[in-house]
């Protein structure tokens, strides 16, 4: 490390031959070379150990027997087709969005999809690994493997097809309109999702208490994300409002929430809300927890948005107002879009934290992914196999967070006007 390696990094590395390039990157000096070698050896050793354990000593039966529990909890078997349908729709919509977004350079940018080819490909490889190799390696039940693979296939096929189609057929204007439409599809799918999961309106109702595992984790996290976002923006605006009541109310709320650990808030939500609200009025345990998560995340998001708002120069609002836009129009069309772009990395960081925070739900007795796993581990039949479970859990949580991270970075680059610069 130190200055030599830094100087070496600034060589036009890409211009060198592959082998030389590798050398320039890994071993610009002898000391760096040794360090690289040592680290590589360490990684290789860890990988060998892990594989040895995974193939030899580990017993994956615990997963084969409990895969459905981990995925959907006690969701009634007869109704599970709804979840797979939803999964298929989500995969289709995600593939569509991914493909279009990827092929969405504006009119001045002709090299299609140049903005994130590397991450994009890594993501594809990871999805294939997760969807095909992991279930196969764990020897999960055949139908489960098949469906899992099908979801991945739908996702990737639509990503490819949509990207192709968009690259060939869409000019700038039409393209942008199409993306807006796509943006509308997400909330629709969201509502549809809740209908499919919860039932009602002709479908057999499935009580939230029966949702569990990955399903519950995803439902809770996405619910909290979707609602905390607008709430957070409103709170951040409230904090800057010229109305003292609004301002102090927002500040008090944000500071109170940020000062309290989530777990206490969850307990408050479970116990106290039950007493406060008249019986029947108080929502189900799962929904109570979902609201607490939402209100919790909103406070943190508000802070992220506030920093974004602070980064927008005053002149932007003045220019908008001087053109005759009223305060609301100026905020919505000029200030907030710029603020959100600045706040995006922080916000996604909060969302990732939120996904991880859902594990606290297991402490208040909900059977989210972690809660389910703990339940399984408590079963004497599977004693001593917690490592296998934890490993799979780690992979699942990591996938959710990595998807968020990759998506946001892609969006971030896509939204950054500097990346649209015509000059290379």
């Amino acid at each position, binding site marked *: 490390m130190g200055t030599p390696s830094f100087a070496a990094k600034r060589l036009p590395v890409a211009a060198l031959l592959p082998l030389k390039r590798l050398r320039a990157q890994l071993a610009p000096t002898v000391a760096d070379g040794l360090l690289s070698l040592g680290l590589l050896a360490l990684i290789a050793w860890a990988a060998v150990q892990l594989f040895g354990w995974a193939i030899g000593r580990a017993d994956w039966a615990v997963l084969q027997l409990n895969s459905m529990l981990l995925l959907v909890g006690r969701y009634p078997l007869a109704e599970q087709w709804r979840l797979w349908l939803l999964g298929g729709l989500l995969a289709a919509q995600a593939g569509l969005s991914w493909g279009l977004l990827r092929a969405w350079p*504006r*009119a*001045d940018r002709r090299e299609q999809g140049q903005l994130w080819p590397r991450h994009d490909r890594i993501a594809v490889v990871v999805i294939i690994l997760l969807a095909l190799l992991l279930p196969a390696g764990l020897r999960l039940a055949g139908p489960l493997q098949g469906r899992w693979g099908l979801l991945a296939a739908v996702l990737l096929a639509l990503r490819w097809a949509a990207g192709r189609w968009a690259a060939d057929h869409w000019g*700038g204007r039409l393209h942008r309109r199409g993306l807006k439409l796509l943006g509308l599809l997400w909330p629709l799918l969201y509502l549809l999702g809740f209908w499919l999961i919860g039932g009602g309106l002709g479908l057999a109702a499935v009580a939230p208490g029966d949702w569990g595992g990955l399903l519950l984790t995803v439902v809770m996290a996405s619910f909290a994300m979707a609602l905390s976002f607008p709430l957070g923006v409103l709170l951040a605006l409230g904090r800057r409002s010229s109305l003292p009541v609004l301002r102090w109310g927002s500040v008090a709320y944000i500071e109170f929430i940020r000062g309290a650990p989530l777990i206490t808030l969850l307990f408050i939500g479970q116990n106290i809300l039950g007493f406060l609200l008249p019986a029947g009025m108080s929502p189900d345990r799962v929904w109570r927890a979902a609201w607490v998560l939402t209100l919790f995340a909103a406070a943190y998001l508000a802070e992220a948005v506030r920093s974004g708002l602070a980064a927008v*120069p005053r*002149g*932007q609002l*003045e*220019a*908008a*107002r*001087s*053109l*005759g*836009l*009223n305060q609301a*129009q100026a905020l919505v*069309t*000029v200030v907030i*879009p*710029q603020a959100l*772009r600045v706040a995006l990395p922080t916000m996604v960081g909060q969302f990732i934290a939120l996904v991880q925070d859902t594990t606290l739900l297991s402490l208040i007795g909900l059977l989210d992914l972690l809660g389910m796993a703990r339940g399984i581990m408590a079963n004497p039949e599977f004693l001593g196999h917690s490592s296998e479970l934890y490993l799979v859990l780690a992979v699942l949580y990591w996938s959710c967070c990595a998807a968020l991270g990759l998506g946001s970075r892609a969006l971030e680059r896509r*939204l950054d*006007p*500097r990346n*649209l*610069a*015509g*000059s290379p």
Partner: protein
Amino acid sequence: MIRAEGVEKWYPNGFHALRGASLTVNRGEVVVIMGPSGSGKSTFIRTFNALEDFQKGSITVDGLALSNDVRQIDAIRREVGMVFQQFNLFPHLSVLENLTLAPVLVRKRPRAEVEQQAMALLERVGIAEQAEKFPGQLSGGQQQRVAIARALCMEPRILLFDEPTSSLDPEMVREVLDVIQALAAEAITMVVVTHEVRFARQVAHRVVLMDEGVVVEQAAPEAFFTAPRHERTQRFLEQIL
């Protein structure tokens, strides 16, 4: 068009920035405001479209009195365009969208029609081929010309310029001043704060000197630059000429 009488303004920190400034701008007239730094030029013209409030005096713009009535203020802002020293283009919108945003949103005009007009305006300021680009991709001079076109797209009756060329590299000053000069030839009412003497001589109908929050002297450009009556104007001219 603009009648400001005895305008006094205190900033929230108590600074007395305008101390009874008065100015009348007639229809079709180009008024250039000059004065030393900190004399209140920006503050003064920013009161004309209510970007700054004031505590005493009165301002009427195009027959409408500036008051605290939000509707009145919005109505005035629609008719008064402003070009800033720092351009203040919207970086997240393309050049064309910068122009069309307000007419579509505020005047509720059909987008296609506004886009046509916007392209014509960009043509006029000489950057039609940049319409799909983003402000960050343009030079300072180009950005300022877009800002002028953006203001024009609202079809304002009055245009305010606050040092439109002060943050430009010297070689770009001319292209922006040329655009403003062309506008002046079309009899648009304009108030321009600038330090460009040559521009003031060629374009202004009247040159105004501000100092310490008041209008000290106003005269036709020739008289202003060659035979200033006021001692403070003489001192100011000595410094800049």
